[in-house]
């Protein structure tokens, strides 16, 4: 850790020095938008995911109070996958700088492994987006990226929390002539020995959680070089390492241990000229999971090229990518390597100021598969100055995972991709900056839904169920006075099996899809002090496909206070689950009651 500090400090000093020397070459910055596909995604909702000032969370813990997703967490700081719009954990994808980084063996991401401390922005996109983003994007997607810095500064952060939680972060950014970079290094650990009521034991004793401690560290390094006004070269590096004990169930007493590592490196090259905008990406990604000493390694090489050209009120984009998956997993028997590529074309059209129409189509090519051609069409129409009507119709698909196909015994090489049809429409009203509200209706159907079923002495996946998805999303933001902001949001999610291998499951809600979720937030700013209180309500969740077992609804109330002592200092404190709710996100996995956090940040600014 100390060494890391020194290295960063050295690099920063060096750059500050460069900055001092750099004089004449002041280029206008090219900004690569974090979500370059978004202009072809009319009618799809994208919202940035924000954490409260001063606290460093994982994506999983921030999303756990977002009613647009349900976080399936196996305990505090433990494995956490998402259900977005009533879909399964594998039917959404995490994108890092535009590349799907779902773990290829599982076809899903563990959102507890991604700390906010290492990223500048995170966005949640709702709804089927396979035509733009490829496999897995059935329920939605999450996008994380770091952005070109605008100033040279160092930010030091340290935090203390309940149950032995310590956090330290050093973030540095610099702008020096043609170069800019941002570096972040983060470490956190927790004993996670929270008290809980054990409802599975006689007399419901208060117990202390054992074997749930974790230690995580990681860094990101993003460098941009703009050699000429129309070229930008970026190099992005990501490393995270999570070492944790697996929180046991209330009734069990295991001592499992898991060590996860993600290594990502990407080079991108962006060129703008009279022929349009061209972008190349080359990345190498590797996930390592070591469960109780058994190691799985999933390396991947990714290359992509796309070209965007404007033509009157049309913008066209055409692109292709190639990926080479590898996997070294004992249960596969032999080492796996396979190629997959995607071809895509998107167009956006603005026939008038008040209309935006987009159309996209994508085809995945993979040996042994015949994935569906995936088109989408979207629209946005502004009515007057306050109303906007938008919508999207799309097909979606998900390729079977490596585990689905290669796991021995049981892996089924004959699986077909899951695929779906979806439609959504939204109406948004915004009256100045004081009030806005929106409502979205969506519906869809996913067929060839993959389920692992017992097959004699082993389990095997089959394309067997068909699920109908529908829902309503409502949002409201209101600023009655300048200092006060009120936000309300509600989701109704119906995710019902229309066909199933078991007739008893037909017509039933999918497990771990709460039908109702709601959140209200109140934020108050006075001078420099910021206070907020958020109440998140999660409705009952069934834990089985026949809906005979359930987890009760629960309310979480969190409070936060951020106090800038000075331009350079920020102190923040938070109290979470202040009503001390007993709740579970996954059956039989305890979650902590009331807990606290205190953090201090210091920023050195060099520019001015």
């Amino acid at each position, binding site marked *: 850790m100390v060494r890391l500090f020194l290295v960063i400090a050295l690099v920063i000093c060096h750059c500050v020095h460069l900055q001092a020397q750099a004089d004449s070459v002041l280029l206008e910055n090219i900004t690569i938008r974090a979500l370059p596909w978004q202009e072809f995604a009319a009618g799809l909702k994208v919202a940035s995911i924000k954490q409260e000032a001063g606290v460093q969370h994982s994506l999983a813990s921030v999303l756990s109070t977002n009613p647009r997703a349900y976080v399936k967490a196996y305990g505090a700081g433990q494995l956490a996958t998402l259900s977005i719009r009533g879909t399964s954990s594998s039917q959404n994808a995490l994108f890092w700088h535009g590349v799907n980084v779902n773990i290829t063996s599982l076809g899903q991401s563990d959102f507890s492994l991604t700390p906010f401390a290492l990223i500048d922005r995170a966005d949640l996109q709702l709804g089927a987006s396979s035509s733009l983003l490829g496999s897995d994007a059935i329920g939605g997607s999450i996008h994380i990226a770091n952005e070109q810095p605008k100033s040279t500064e160092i930010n030091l952060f340290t935090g203390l929390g309940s149950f032995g939680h310590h956090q330290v972060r050093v973030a540095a950014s610099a702008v020096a002539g043609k170069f800019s970079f941002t570096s972040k290094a983060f470490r956190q650990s927790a004993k996670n020995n929270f008290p809980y009521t054990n*409802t*599975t*034991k*006689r007399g419901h004793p208060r117990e202390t959680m054992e074997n749930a401690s974790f230690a995580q560290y990681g860094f990101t390094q993003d460098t941009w070089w703009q050699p000429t006004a129309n070229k930008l070269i970026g190099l992005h590096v990501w490393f995270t390492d999570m070492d944790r004990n697996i929180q046991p*169930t*209330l*009734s*069990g*007493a*295991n001592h*499992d*241990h898991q060590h996860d590592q993600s290594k990502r490196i990407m080079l991108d090259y962006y060129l703008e000229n009279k022929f349009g905008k061209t972008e190349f990406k080359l990345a190498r990604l590797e996930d390592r999971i070591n469960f*109780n*000493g*058994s190691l799985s390694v999933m390396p991947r090489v990714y290359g992509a090229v796309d070209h965007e050209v404007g033509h009157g009120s049309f913008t066209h984009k055409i692109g292709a990518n190639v990926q080479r998956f590898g996997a070294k997993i004992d249960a596969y028997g032999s080492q796996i390597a396979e190629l997959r590529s995607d071809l895509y074309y998107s167009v956006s059209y603005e026939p008038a100021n008040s209309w935006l129409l987009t159309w996209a189509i994508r085809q995945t090519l993979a040996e042994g598969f015949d994935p569906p051609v995936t088109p989408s069409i979207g629209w946005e129409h502004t009515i007057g100055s306050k109303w906007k009507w938008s919508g999207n119709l799309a097909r979606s698909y998900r390729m079977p995972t490596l585990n689905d196909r290669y796991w021995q*015994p049981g892996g089924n090489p004959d699986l077909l991709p899951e695929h779906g049809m979806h439609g959504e429409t939204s109406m948004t009203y915004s009256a100045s900056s004081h009030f806005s509200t929106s409502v979205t209706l969506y519906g869809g159907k996913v067929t060839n839904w993959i*389920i*692992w*079923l*017992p*097959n*004699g*002495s082993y389990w095997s996946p089959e394309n067997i169920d068909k699920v109908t998805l529908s829902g309503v999303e409502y949002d409201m933001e209101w600023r009655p006075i300048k200092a006060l902001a009120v936000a309300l949001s509600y989701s109704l999610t119906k995710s019902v099996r229309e066909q199933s*291998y*078991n*007739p*008893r*499951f037909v017509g039933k809600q999918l*497990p771990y899809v709460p039908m109702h979720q709601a959140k209200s937030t109140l934020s108050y700013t006075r001078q420099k002090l910021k206070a907020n209180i958020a109440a998140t309500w999660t409705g009952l969740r069934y*834990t*089985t*496909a*026949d*809906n*005979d*077992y359930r987890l009760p609804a629960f309310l979480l109330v969190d409070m936060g206070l951020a106090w800038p002592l000075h331009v350079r200092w920020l102190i923040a404190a938070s109290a979470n689950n202040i009503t001390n709710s007993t709740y579970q996100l996954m*059956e*039989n996995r305890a979650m902590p009651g009331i807990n606290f956090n205190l953090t201090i940040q210091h920023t050195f600014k060099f520019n001015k």
Partner: protein
Amino acid sequence: MKNRFLYILLITLMGLWSCTSDDNSGPKGEYAKGIFVVNEGNFGLGNGSVSHFNTDTKEVEQDIFKSVNEIPLGDVVQSMHVDGKQAYIVVNNSKKVEVVDLGTFKSTATISAGLANPRYMATKGTKGYISNWGNFDASFNLDQSFIAVVDLTNQALLKKINTQNGTENVLIVGDRLFVSNNFTSTVEIINLATEAVEKSLTVGNSPGALAVDNAGTVWVVCGGSWGGNDGKLVSINASNGSIQKTIDLGFNVAAKMAINKPKNQHYIYSGKKVYRHQNNTVTPFLDITEFTSIYGIGFDEKNGHLYVSDDAGFAGNGTVRRYSEDGSLIDSFISGIGPNGFVFIVE
């Protein structure tokens, strides 16, 4: 209100009636008769249970342990053994045996000392014999399988008898304990007087359920090796411990078995198919295509019915079907999650 009063009166009367008419030493109470379904539950979720099926009223009561004792039974309910008025419920991943009064299902004791992945149990006098796989280390290597000899009067561990890997079913015949070692090909015979293994027999891959036939011969079903299509039914002379007969099935089966009342027919299964063995001949008996996968089998001697359970992919409650001995479906009922076996109270 009036209805409720009548109902309570009726229940009370029924209770009185059952007390007066049933004055011998058998178990008393709501669960004194009928059929118990052992529901494993999902591994790690602690939702294993025991369901009770009343053969007269056809009523099913789910998770009776929890409703009586107000705590969940535990994680992976593997088996239930009945001896007189006591039932012993072996809870694998909770590493315990719950002792309940058979009539009321009230928990009277918990055996946990020395247990490591307990599987099945047999009793004789004041001693219990519990098969244990042993503990798996981080890389899933097994340390040592054993039979735990337990004093039933104080739940104390008396002795561990080391056995070969994956010790599964247990059966007492006379003063011998037969144990099948599921991760191997052996059945070991333990002398109950010396509490030592006196013989090890190689029977076939993955031996499991044990049963005694009408001639006093011990039968063991062997599931077969991985992809080997070499399931077997093997009979063992109980008095001299020698193998009498080996029936090669030509396919793999589950290591579970039911035996009919005259104890001359065995029911075994593979996937969705049930087979019947009699006089060295194995014939297809049922093909239950509506099932996801058969997970348990049992025979109700009182009524002559075969019980077969579907695990429903462990995604929800399972289903139990009842068949007559001619293979015709009688009816079905819903059990708990992962129904893996049955206990029939012989009145």
